[in-house]
């Protein structure tokens, strides 16, 4: 067959791009040339030439101009706005529902993003924050030991000496390991126990950027016996007077000169303090020089590195450093790690943190909740808009007939959805402003409303309506603009377009809400279990009295005797840390070990297990009659026996320690949770300490078990006895169970917040369901009326109406259950003690969802069942 026509695709390409006015003669010309070249040469050359010409003609002047008429676009938007306003006013109910649902979703999103941003902003106010690292010490063998955030005194200086090129400065914090320290004005008119007093190096201001109001950062902490305090502390001790140059009496015997006043420490730092005392002052406490022990690790140590890249090589040099300086018996169990300052708040979960930190998982959970709620709100929006699409069919038909292009229609509907979103955002901001104080108290933060004016949030606020508007509005826009004019104008079609898609969306909505509900339920369960379940020792009715460094040493026995005289005081003992919250670690060399190993340890006084009702499973308790108990005897717990590989508790009795045959284990106690239930029970050594010096650092608290009767009287009686024995030292106390609740503060907060937000998400989902059902009721008015006329009973109509929605909820449940299960298992894995996921919870959540949905639909279903058919059908 002879080739007579040029390649079709090139031709079509030309037709596509070419301006119609020029198309005819251009196309004609190249066809003519084609024929000529066909005659002159062969077909292939002609083809090539043709294609070449087509591409050569692809010039700006030949290309189709878009048909948009830009001059009238301003007027068009004005028209869109007018139409939007009219539509809004005409259907106030729906529009309001739509906006309100979206506003709630956006408000939740905003609140959570405020929270997350605050969490991420911790410690970033320091200019050198990216070069500041904290050194952590991990002292472990066989997985038992401590992961400490604090180090021995000499480490910092030795590090800087050895690695001068990398470490610019170091700062240490030390608070005598005392929970509170006493401070008073020089004339003793005001005296308080301060919990946030720290000793720190003079390089403090070189590393951290806290604003100083009075005084000079270079010299404020360089001399011995100087103290720097915050504004509110200055007011507390000195009223309105200028504190500079005045003295404060520390510990009843040391006068500290005030050399500076700082601005109050902002909430978003991982450690908060009220007082800083110069490090040199400590020398007086330790006989003229800093402690040189490489074993005792009480100082939080921060390093300012030359640059970020120095961190990795420095950390690599740590093992050698440890070998060089640390004493032989612990050298091989210690590793030092560098931890960036900005990561501490969210990621550091070491022992002996200055303050409890938040966790990254909580942040992730909140972010996912925020996204869920926003998604549900957007789905609402999409659903309602598409459902109402048919009402606007005529308008779309008219616009298309009068020359509107599809692009214009899409623009119109996107514009409308963006306007709705804008209104929602405005309402959301209002909701956030109102809810912020409550939210602040719930999350224990202090987020000011003005933070919304920050660049980041302004950007977010502008981006939100745009993106949510586009995402939520895209589908309805496309659906609406696709109406064919003829079918749209011909008759009022009540056919529901895109019903399946809407159903899918409702299923997604409700699944998300159900997952949130189940999640909340599991979180609450877990929290309950953590808090309530048996920790193995008594927590109720135990009063703890901080006694560190108080002059109780000489009077302990007499004080104890006096306390016990009251019939309501059942038992008195002393303990190293708050039982159930914290413990210390000590190195012990037991029979069967080649070198001493770190073990969790608690120093106690007599009657420890009696006070806390800890059962003794083998051997005997420490006895006041046996004087040598405090140096020749030790008690351990069951887990310890297991860890050492001894076959029974009885076998443990008589095992020696410290390589002396007269030092033996005398008793084994039942396992109890001496630290929070975030961790499993580890081996424990209970060490009796009856020395007077013990009160300086080993025994921090007195624990008094009371009977629970006449508590106020018992306490005031104890206070009297205290005053009599130890005058000049304020009596402070707290209940053990109150304190232990704080262990689970993070989970508590989280469960409260998830509860509120899942409630909100169900609310939003139901708003959507309500709107949808209202709409469907209207749509199917005629159908229902006809059914009634033909003899359908009220109940039948009701069931018919509700059935389709119930099916959707049922499917949502089925979808949600496995997903919720998987997510919950993952979250629970972060806990050492996990609650069993209760399946009745799933059932309960399902019922709750069905119930709430039922109530929502009920109203509409009833109305549909009770409409007078005559009213509806009279126009037919």
């Amino acid at each position, binding site marked *: 067959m002879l080739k007579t026509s040029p390649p079709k695709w090139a031709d079509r390409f030309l037709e596509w791009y070419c301006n119609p006015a020029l198309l005819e003669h251009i*196309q004609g010309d190249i066809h*003519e040339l084609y024929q000529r070249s066909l005659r002159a040469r062969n077909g292939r050359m002609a083809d090539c030439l043709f294609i070449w010409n087509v591409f050569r003609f692809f010039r700006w002047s030949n290309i189709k101009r878009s048909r948009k008429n830009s001059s009238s676009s301003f007027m068009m938007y004005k028209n869109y706005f007018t139409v939007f306003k009219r539509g809004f006013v005409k259907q106030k109910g729906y529009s309001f529902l739509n906006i309100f649902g979206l506003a709630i979703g956006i408000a939740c999103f905003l609140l959570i993003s405020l929270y997350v941003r605050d969490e991420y902003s911790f410690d970033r106010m320091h200019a050198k924050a990216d070069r500041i690292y904290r050194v952590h010490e991990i002292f472990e063998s066989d997985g038992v030991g401590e992961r400490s955030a604090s180090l021995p005194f000499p480490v910092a200086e030795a590090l800087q000496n050895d690695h001068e090129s990398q470490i610019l400065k170091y700062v240490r914090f030390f608070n005598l390991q005392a929970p509170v320290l006493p401070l008073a004005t020089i004339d003793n008119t005001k005296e308080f126990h301060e919990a946030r007093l720290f000793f720190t190096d003079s390089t403090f201001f070189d590393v951290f950027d806290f604003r100083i109001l009075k005084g000079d950062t270079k010299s404020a902490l360089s001399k011995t016996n100087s103290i720097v305090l915050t504004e509110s502390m200055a007011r507390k001790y000195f009223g309105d007077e200028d504190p500079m140059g005045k003295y404060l009496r520390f510990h009843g015997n040391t006068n500290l000169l005030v050399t500076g006043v700082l601005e109050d420490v902002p909430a978003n730092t991982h450690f908060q303090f009220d007082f800083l005392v110069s490090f040199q002052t400590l020398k007086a406490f330790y006989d003229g020089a800093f402690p040189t022990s490489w074993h005792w690790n009480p100082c939080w140590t921060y390093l300012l590195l030359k640059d970020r890249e120095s961190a990795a090589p420095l950390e690599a040099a740590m093992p050698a450093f440890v070998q060089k300086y640390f004493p032989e018996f612990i050298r091989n169990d210690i590793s030092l790690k560098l931890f960036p300052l900005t990561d501490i708040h969210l990621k550091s979960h070491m022992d002996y943190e200055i303050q409890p930190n938040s966790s990254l998982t909580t942040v992730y959970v909140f972010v996912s909740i925020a996204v869920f709620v926003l998604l549900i709100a957007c789905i609402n929006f999409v659903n309602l808009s598409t459902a109402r699409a048919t009402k606007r069919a005529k308008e779309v038909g008219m616009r298309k007939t009068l020359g509107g292009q599809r692009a214009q229609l899409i623009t119109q509907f996107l514009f409308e959805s963006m306007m709705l979103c804008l209104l929602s955002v405005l309402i959301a901001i209002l909701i956030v402003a109102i809810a912020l104080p409550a939210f602040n108290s719930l999350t224990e933060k202090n987020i000011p409303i003005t933070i919304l004016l920050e660049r980041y949030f302004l950007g977010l606020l502008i981006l939100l309506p745009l993106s949510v508007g586009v995402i939520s509005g895209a589908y309805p826009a496309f659906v609406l603009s696709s109406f064919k004019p003829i079918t749209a104008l011909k008759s009022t079609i009540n056919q529901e377009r895109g019903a399946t898609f809407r159903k899918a969306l409702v299923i997604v909505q409700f699944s998300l809400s159900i997952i949130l509900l189940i999640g909340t339920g599991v979180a609450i369960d877990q929290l309950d279990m953590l808090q309530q379940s048996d920790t193995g020792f008594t927590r109720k009715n135990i009063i703890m009295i901080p006694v560190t460094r108080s002059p109780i040493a000489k009077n302990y026995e007499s004080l104890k005797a006096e306390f016990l005289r009251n019939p309501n005081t059942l038992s008195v003992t002393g303990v190293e840390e708050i039982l159930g919250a914290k413990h210390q670690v000590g190195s012990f060399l037991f029979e069967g070990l080649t070198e001493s190993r770190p073990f969790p340890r608690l120093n106690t006084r007599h009657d420890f297990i009696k006070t806390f009702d800890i059962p003794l499973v083998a051997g005997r308790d420490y006895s006041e009659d046996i004087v040598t108990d405090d140096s020749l005897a030790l008690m351990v717990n069951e887990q310890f026996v297991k860890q050492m590989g001894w076959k029974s508790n009885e076998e443990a009795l008589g095992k020696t320690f410290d390589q002396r045959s007269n030092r033996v284990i005398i008793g084994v106690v039942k396992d109890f949770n001496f630290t929070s239930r975030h961790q499993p029970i580890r081996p424990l050594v209970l060490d009796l300490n009856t020395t007077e010096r013990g009160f300086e650092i080993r025994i921090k608290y007195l624990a008094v078990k009371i009977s629970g009767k006449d508590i106020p009287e018992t306490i005031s009686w104890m206070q009297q006895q205290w005053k009599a024995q130890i005058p000049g030292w304020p009596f402070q106390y707290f209940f053990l169970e109150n304190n232990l609740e704080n262990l689970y503060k993070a989970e508590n907060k989280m469960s409260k917040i998830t509860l509120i937000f899942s409630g909100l998400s169900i609310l939003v989902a139901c708003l959507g369901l309500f709107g949808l059902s209202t709409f469907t009721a209207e749509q199917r008015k005629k159908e229902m009326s006809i059914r009634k006329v033909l003899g359908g009973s009220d109940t039948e109509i009701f069931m018919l109406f509700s059935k389709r929605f119930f099916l959707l909820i049922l499917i949502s449940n089925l979808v949600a259950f496995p997903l919720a299960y998987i997510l919950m298992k993952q979250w629970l894995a972060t806990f050492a003690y996990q609650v069993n996921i209760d399946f009745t919870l799933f059932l309960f959540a399902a019922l709750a969802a069905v119930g709430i949905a039922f109530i929502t639909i009920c109203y509409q279903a009833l109305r549909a069942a009770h409409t007078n058919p005559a009213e509806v059908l009279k126009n037919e």
Partner: protein
Amino acid sequence: MDEIEKQAGRNMNISAVHAVLTRLEDKGFVTSKMGDPTQERGGRRKRIFLLTASGKRALEEVNELRNQLFNQIPKVALQFKLV
């Protein structure tokens, strides 16, 4: 296009010709009208360009300018002798 090929020996692309003619038309030097459809072009009409009076004048001006410039070249510059 064919003439240039025949006389000057160089190829011209049809789209270049179109572009030039369109520019000349915008300047008013040529006018165009649609010719008759032919079989060879698949039934499409051809655009026929005709010179206008101002076009003729422009041509003459250009030609005149060119000659003027050429005449100003000194004879000496045009003589190439082997030295």
